[in-house]
């Protein structure tokens, strides 16, 4: 009996361990001889629906089984990391341009250059260069070299105005080819800011912007930038940068053309814009479906431009990558190509009003179509083709240095600190984070 106790324990241990491990390591297909891929992505209802439809079509056409894993936007990073740590990397999954470097260096994503360039289902020349280049990496810099993902979408962040409101206020409509100067923009916004129902409180404003998502166009068009060319030095302490940030803060503090400081949260100005209380507001492709139902006329224009006179904006993008460990690289790449460039899949996403087409020819047709708003859809394409840039935090190993700028920015927006002072203070802290990120990237 004395002997049997450890025996029993060991037995029990093995049984239980076997049970648990069995549960963990569910084989990813292969047993039945049928090909099975997993595709992990994030997104809202519309995207889910469009992708499910596309994936179904892919399954029947290619005789492959695809398992879909959808998460919400804010859970995606956590779940994907967990999957990677557990060596259960999905065969096909979303990555952002900011992840490319780390994922390539750690052998998580596959170099798909050969497959994509030699492919007969996809024509690289017909896909936005910006979209593809965002997922190139040559071992040093993101943006050049081998292709590690294809774009799921490109998201040019544009600017718009409430046409009905401007007409009522007797303001000449802005030119879609010639951006406002900063001063012209302030003048127009001032005219729009008013108390229209005479109750003594403002109920209409020129604009209402969120610093984190709207500052970039103004800084860039004013000749400033976040980083130097080789992304080693934080350059926010330049006069151009300070001037544009100060101008941005002054919209509220000096000119009073935005809802009061406390009300400037995106959500609130977003709601106010949709209620027709705001004259000028950012417009992104993923807003288009919602904005179709707005109760006023609106259109898209270039962002007001600073010193340089040249308008600027940023483009968001998400990519679809293939796991290095996939059992069926060819089918996985095919799925990526299908999701990026399949005409029907693209059309259903465009029809859902959440993105612009990835295919150039299709985008031109879309832009020329006048049956849906806005009239000036071509502006979105201009951003992608011509003047759009990546968000500054997107192309470095992590975005900690970039987030740092916004963490303590509130006093500037409230007019309690000058932009120049704040930036001088923030630069060394940002630089420290950037150095750490660059050092991480090098190892």
């Amino acid at each position, binding site marked *: *009996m004395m002997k*049997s*106790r450890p025996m*029993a*324990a060991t*037995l*029990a*241990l093995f*049984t*239980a*361990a076997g049970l*648990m491990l069995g549960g963990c390591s569910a084989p990813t297909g292969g047993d039945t001889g049928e090909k099975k891929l997993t595709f992990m992505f994030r997104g809202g209802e519309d995207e889910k629906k469009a992708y499910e439809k596309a994936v179904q079509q892919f399954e029947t056409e290619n005789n492959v089984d695809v398992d879909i894993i959808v998460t919400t936007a*804010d859970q995606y*990073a*956590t779940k994907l*990391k967990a999957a*990677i*740590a557990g060596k259960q990397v999905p065969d096909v999954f979303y990555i952002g341009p900011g992840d490319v470097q*780390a*994922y390539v*260096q*750690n052998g*998580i994503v596959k170099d798909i250059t050969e497959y994509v360039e030699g492919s007969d289902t996809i024509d690289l020349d017909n896909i936005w260069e910006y979209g593809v280049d965002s997922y190139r990496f040559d071992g040093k810099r993101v943006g050049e070299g081998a292709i590690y993902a294809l774009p799921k979408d490109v998201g040019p962040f544009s600017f718009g105005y409430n046409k009905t409101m401007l007409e009522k206020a007797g303001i000449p409509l802005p030119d879609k080819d010639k951006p406002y100067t900063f001063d012209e923009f302030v003048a127009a916004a001032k005219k729009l800011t008013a108390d229209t129902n005479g109750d003594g409180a403002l109920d209409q404003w020129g604009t209402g912007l969120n610093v984190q998502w709207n500052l970039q166009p103004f800084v860039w068009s004013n000749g400033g930038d976040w980083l130097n060319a080789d992304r080693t030095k934080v350059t926010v302490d330049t006069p151009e940068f300070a001037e544009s940030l100060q101008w941005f803060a002054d919209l509220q503090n000096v000119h009073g053309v935005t809802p009061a400081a*406390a*009300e400037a*949260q995106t959500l*609130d100005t977003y709601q106010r814009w949709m209620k027709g209380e705001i004259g000028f507001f950012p417009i992104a492709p993923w807003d288009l479906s919602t904005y179709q139902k707005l109760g006023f006329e609106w259109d898209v224009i270039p962002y007001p431009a600073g010193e340089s006179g040249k308008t600027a904006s940023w483009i968001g993008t998400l990519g679809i990558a293939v796991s290095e460990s996939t059992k069926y690289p060819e089918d996985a790449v095919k799925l990526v190509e299908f999701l990026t460039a399949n005409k029907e899949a693209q059309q259903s996403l465009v029809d859902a009003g959440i993105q612009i087409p990835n295919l150039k020819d299709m985008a031109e047709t879309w832009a020329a179509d006048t049956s849906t708003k806005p009239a000036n859809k071509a502006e979105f394409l201009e951003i992608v083709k011509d003047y759009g840039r990546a968000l500054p935090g997107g192309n470095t*190993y*992590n*975005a*900690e240095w970039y*987030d740092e700028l*916004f*963490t*303590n920015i*509130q*006093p500037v927006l409230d007019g309690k600190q000058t932009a120049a002072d704040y930036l001088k203070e923030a630069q060394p802290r940002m630089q420290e984070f950037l150095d750490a990120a660059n050092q*991480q990237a090098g*190892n």
Partner: protein
Amino acid sequence: MTTITRPRRSRLHRKEHQAALLFVAIPVIGFLLFTLFPLLFSVYASFTNWNGISAPVFKGLDNYTKMFGDRYFLKSLWNTLFMMIGIPVGLVISLALALAMNRKMRGTTFFRTVYYLPVISSIAAVAILWQWAFNGDFGLINQGLGLIGIEGPNWLQDTSTVKPALIIMAVWKGLGYSMLLYLAALQSVPRYLYEAASLDGATAWQQFRHITIPMVRPVTFFLIVTSIIGGSQIFVEINIMTPTGGPEFESASIVWYIWQKAFDNLQMGYASAMSVVLGLLVFTITFIQFRLNRRNQFSID
């Protein structure tokens, strides 16, 4: 060796022992695999430079020395500590509520349910609800304040109100649970103690002070310990209500900061080191509490 009858009886024994061990093994293995192993691994990871996907590189105490120069680490630690102000406040209110509920009056069941509802509601849903309630323009709270002529702040955007806002919500959320435990404790206080006290001429306050409070002390102790452990891990509310850590990092809690480092900024090693420090802090505080409590213990017979 001893008797002949033993083997006969022991077969059943052995069988039962085996079955018992099997039952015991499941939670034990679960503990080893899902608690002890990750715990030890994160201790190891805390000494490395690790981004969560590559192989960790050993760096010695780097992460630990870095921590004490990291102003956001210190700030989030301070924020977490500050938000624990809600614990005593919550205890006082829940004891008061429990006393009220303990009286024989109409509608106590209804009120008990009302106060317990937040406890069983999903924290994520509740956080979104409160986020709306705290909205500076349309929020329920500011509208309520508006009725009595006070212009409320933009709670979650203002550096001076964001922590109080989160505390208010945490107190509200935890009230029902503490109240229920207090209620149970109150109902188990022997009635004869009060009887004897009132015969001796003790006032209601004296009875409360010298009978009720000492009699519910074990519950108070339990609540303080669990609230401090829970409070040091506050995360979901913060992540939902102030997804960027609040204005000027004023509402970032330590767990939120750890999470951000690990998953947003690919610094799993550093995040592990901070978790280890947090774990040690919680352990130390709890240990001290148990020591203090032992000194204050008493029993009635």
